[in-house]
């Protein structure tokens, strides 16, 4: 097992690299410092060795820092990144953060805040000697809920999945309430259990909250697991019909609750049929949805405008939001009277629920 982390510093100035090597090698965790004066060399090193942290300049000949960072973000998603630049420009700071860098620091600030900067680096390196565990990455929600029950916790489990937020209330290891997207009780609990991924945190217990769940947790978990199995692998025609009917009802209720007029979900070309609610000519619109996202992504890469967030459009009778979720493209239609400032958040919630 490797005991020291490796830092890769990319800058076209060899003198600067030497200075950085001198400074960073004095960090308490004694990281191994590697340097590169060219982007191609840095990417080669990242391919051949495991690094914990990349420190990258922005102004470089041939391939600039932003280009390097977009490549790194795609090819090495676990690598932590710092931009160390001489460019005092808010725009570059935003563009770097939009590419997912952990930290943007000005070279000129190093002399004033060098201790703080080194602390930040040390923290990003995350020393193993600190001990303890971080995150529960390979456990499903069922495991986490069972852990809370077995340890007889009194807590509120707040679970986040993209823009969606759910809460589960426990008192001495007993689940007594659940809430998600306007639903409460057992219905909400079943809905939450269908989530495949997300993050969670423990909030202080709320023992005075009204009880909506009375059945024991094991019965609920068993029932939910069976329902999910039936949905995934319907054994009979009736089960298949029931599962499809439940999905359809849920999606229509989502559409109505959010106030959207229609939704089109378009898988990548050749990977299935588009799904549409509330609109005709779905093939044509699904094609436009896919194409418009493709055009925008291509344009964004050409002009280095950062990652695409979404497309908003106004037609004669509707407002539209086009966005990607996973591998699918979504088009959501809203009435002209809908509040334009809320449409992105509402569309994100709708799409995240839709696809769960």
């Amino acid at each position: 097992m490797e005991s020291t982390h490796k830092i890769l510093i990319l800058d076209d100035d060899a003198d600067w690299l030497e200075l950085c090597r001198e400074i960073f090698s004095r960090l308490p965790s004694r990281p191994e410092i590697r340097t590169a004066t060219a982007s191609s060399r840095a990417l080669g090193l990242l391919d051949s060795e495991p690094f914990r942290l990349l420190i990258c300049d922005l102004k470089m000949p041939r391939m600039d820092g932003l280009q390097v960072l977009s490549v790194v973000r795609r090819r090495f998603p676990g690598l932590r990144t710092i931009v160390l630049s001489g460019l005092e420009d808010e725009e570059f700071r935003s563009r770097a953060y939009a590419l997912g860098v952990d930290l943007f620091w000005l070279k000129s600030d190093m002399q004033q805040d060098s201790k703080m900067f080194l602390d930040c680096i040390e923290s990003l390196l995350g020393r193993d000697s600190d001990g303890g565990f971080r995150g529960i990455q390979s456990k499903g929600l069922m495991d986490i809920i069972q852990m809370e029950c077995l340890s007889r916790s009194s807590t509120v489990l707040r679970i986040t999945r993209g823009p969606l937020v759910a809460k589960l209330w426990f008192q001495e290891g007993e689940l007594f309430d659940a809430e998600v997207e306007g639903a409460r009780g057992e219905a909400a609990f079943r809905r939450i259990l269908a989530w495949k991924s997300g993050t969670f945190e423990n909030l202080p217990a709320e023992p005075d909250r009204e009880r909506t769940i009375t059945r024991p947790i094991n019965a609920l978990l068993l029932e939910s697991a069976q329902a999910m199995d039936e949905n995934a692998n319907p054994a009979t025609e009736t089960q298949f019909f029931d599962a499809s009917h439940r999905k359809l009802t849920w999606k229509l209720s989502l559409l109505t609750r959010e106030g959207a007029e229609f939704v089109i979900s378009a898988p990548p070309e050749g990977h299935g049929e588009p799904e549409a609610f509330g609109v005709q000519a779905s093939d044509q619109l699904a094609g436009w949805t896919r194409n418009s996202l493709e055009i925008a992504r291509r344009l964004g890469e050409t002009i280095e405008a950062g990652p695409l967030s979404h497309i908003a459009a106004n037609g004669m009778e509707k407002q539209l939001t086009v966005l990607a979720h996973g591998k699918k493209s979504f088009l959501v239609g809203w009435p002209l009277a809908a509040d334009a400032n809320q449409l992105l958040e509402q569309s994100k919630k709708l799409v995240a629920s839709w696809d769960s």
Partner: protein
Amino acid sequence: MGFIKKLARLFRSRAAIRQLPVGSLTVNRDGQIITSTVSSTYPKSLLDEIGHEVLALFREARAAQLPLAEVSVHFGSLLITARELRGGTIIFLRPQSVLSQPPN
């Protein structure tokens, strides 16, 4: 040599990286730029590209029976807003920063 002197020596200017475009441009139905307030230092080929791709967005929407009056493309660092102008378009380019209003 002192740390500050070393730093000062290292901050000499080097090759600049490209700025994002700021301003507006009008493009006719053939994709030709008619007027532009974007800095002349910004490459014209990239402005042409922006014009063509925005026209393609409007054109494809019309083909899908979904005529649009306005399209906004939200990137991490740039907002492109385009209004349809009788087959052509007027395009507004506005860089986004952490201080910008949240996107609509």
